[in-house]
């Protein structure tokens, strides 16, 4: 009913101002119907957000295309055109090896975190036992501390030679192995995964789990065959967040290897590797950065729907 009167009003308004200019018509139209004014405003805001988020990438691309030595005041266009830099970065340094290292580390960490956090999330989300809240707070406590607070003892620990590890690792110490990154980062990103999975697992109706148990499934079987498959969006969200987090992490990636690609140095060290002692190849750093961001961009394109719906369904609702 309300809409009906509104439209007739607008119609009258339009007839009245037929002889005025298009702008005047638009103004009087927006006064009588504010919804119309919001639309251009909405697009204006959207374009503003798009420009501000994407411009740094565009600019980085321009820097990459500018040949070395001509980097002065690059704004909207490159000074020169040198697309060959995207091949050079793989020749100057084995940049693909750094990327590979990062991928292996991020994948292993994500898989490990998902398994361990699933067990913990199941416990916190579905079981009742004394000491539940203090234990959850203890998990959250980990995120208060700067990673630096863990570093010295861990560094000592990873540089100690353990005789037991001798057959697996060349000198029995974890430094310069992927484990030196996987282990601390698993601990670092586990609290978030536990919290996401806890909320997801707690939402599965008890009846489904009971039915599986009556059918003769073991306790662990019920978790892995009923609870986890039913919370697939939550598991995907936790997995994607962990993967991106590990790939982007700075502190341990910077300090836990000596920066050599054969010693499992991650992509961060590859980008910094173009910073030589005598000259810094800014264009190569820019090109390497673009190459390193691409997989994350693809992951976001593929997973964004999952991430948002995952957070909606579990993470933040009561």
């Amino acid at each position: 009913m309300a809409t009906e009167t509104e439209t007739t009003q607008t119609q009258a308004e339009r007839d009245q101002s037929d002889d005025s200019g298009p702008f005047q018509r638009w103004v009087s139209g927006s006064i009588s119907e504010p919804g119309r004014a919001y639309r251009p405003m909405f697009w204006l805001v959207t374009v503003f957000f798009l420009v501000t988020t994407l411009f740094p990438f565009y600019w980085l691309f321009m820097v990459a295309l500018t040949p070395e030595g001509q980097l002065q005041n690059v704004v909207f266009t490159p000074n020169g055109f040198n697309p060959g830099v995207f091949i050079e970065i793989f020749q100057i340094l084995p940049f693909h090896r750094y990327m590979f290292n990062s991928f292996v580390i991020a994948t292993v960490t994500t898989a490990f975190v998902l398994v361990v956090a699933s067990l913990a999330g199941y416990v916190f989300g579905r079981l009742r036992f004394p000491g539940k809240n203090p234990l959850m707070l203890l998990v959250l406590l980990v995120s208060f501390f700067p990673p630096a607070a863990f570093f010295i003892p861990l560094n000592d620990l990873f540089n100690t030679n353990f005789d037991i590890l001798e057959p697996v690792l060349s000198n029995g110490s974890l430094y310069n192995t992927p484990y030196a990154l996987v282990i601390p980062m698993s601990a670092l990103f586990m609290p978030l995964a536990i919290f996401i999975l806890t909320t997801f697992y707690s939402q599965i109706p008890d009846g489904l789990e009971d039915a599986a148990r009556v059918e003769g499934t073991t306790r662990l079987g019920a978790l892995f065959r009923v609870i986890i498959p039913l919370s697939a969006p939550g598991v995907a969200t936790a997995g994607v967040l962990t993967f991106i987090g590990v790939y982007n992490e700075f502190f341990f990636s910077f300090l836990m290897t000596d920066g050599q690609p054969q010693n499992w140095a991650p992509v961060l060290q590859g980008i910094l590797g173009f910073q030589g002692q005598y000259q810094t190849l800014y264009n190569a750093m820019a090109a390497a950065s673009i190459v390193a961001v691409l997989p994350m961009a693809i992951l976001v394109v593929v997973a964004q729907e999952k991430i948002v719906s995952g957070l909606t369904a579990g993470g933040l609702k009561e």
Partner: protein
Amino acid sequence: MSTETERHERGRLAPVVDWMENLSEAAYAYLLLIPAFGLLTLIAFYPMISTFWMSLLEDQTRGAETLGGFVGLENYIGILTGDARLARQFLDVQLTGSFPFFELGVGFFQQALFVTLSFAILNVIFTTLIGFGQALVLDKDFRGRRWVRVAVIIPWAVPIVIQGMIFYLMFQPTVGFGADVMNALGLFSATPLASSQDSFFILLIADVWKTSAFMALLILAGLQSVDRSLYDVAKVSGASTWQRFKLITFPLALPAVLVAMLFRTMDAMRVYGLIESTAGCTTVPSMTCMVIEGMFGGTRIYGTAAAVAFMTAAIIGVFISIYIVKFRGQEGGVY
């Protein structure tokens, strides 16, 4: 079908499975928590305790031993009074008799506590506002929403070292245009990355650029769980757009906003990688910077560095408890 495989598996593992089936709920809970807490103990709790012990020991800058005897809270007192041998002071304020009753020893942006606190507070304010704006845009239905959403989220997926490099290059006078533009406007000096104050704002812009997306993501999740029929009701009863925002969107999204702010605060207080890859820790000292400088800077002040690490955690803890108190007042908080 599943029972058959079950039986098959049970062959060898039967005793273990039976034992697990017969545990009480609490015992089973503790059993499943062992892997998570085992890892956290090894990687987080043990190093934390060990670092805490270090923070109570004297710095030993000479000799083979890296730490001296037990000095109690002396390191903490040294840090708070500006007597610590840090490259940049954590806090350097003298109390005076006249207004405004205190005096800064060194510049505001050269004291780690002020740098970190103002960075965190400004960062959270700006990312919340911008993130809320972005979330409101992404919550609408329009053609191409999928791609706008991707574009808004992407900065968040950028590795810190790349984020730092983009803004480093932009404000590097020989490469980027940022330094020239800002200098022409009279806002920054000619070499902004060498000035503490200018660098602080560059870092702030860089971090707001990246982390607004994270805020937008979490707030969007909150907005999407708002029941759409509420808006129809509001429309029928004649609520204006502003009233709809004030009475429906805002209160219902508030818990999500608070959770997002909580995570953002914790992160912003631990800022380090961004600083290291742009202006450097000497120009803009954050609290984590102090820890790293103390540990790896060659000055061998391990005790003090450990104490700074613990003070950082304590300050983060204070902020967290503020949020938790706020949560209690809210309905539908997460915990």
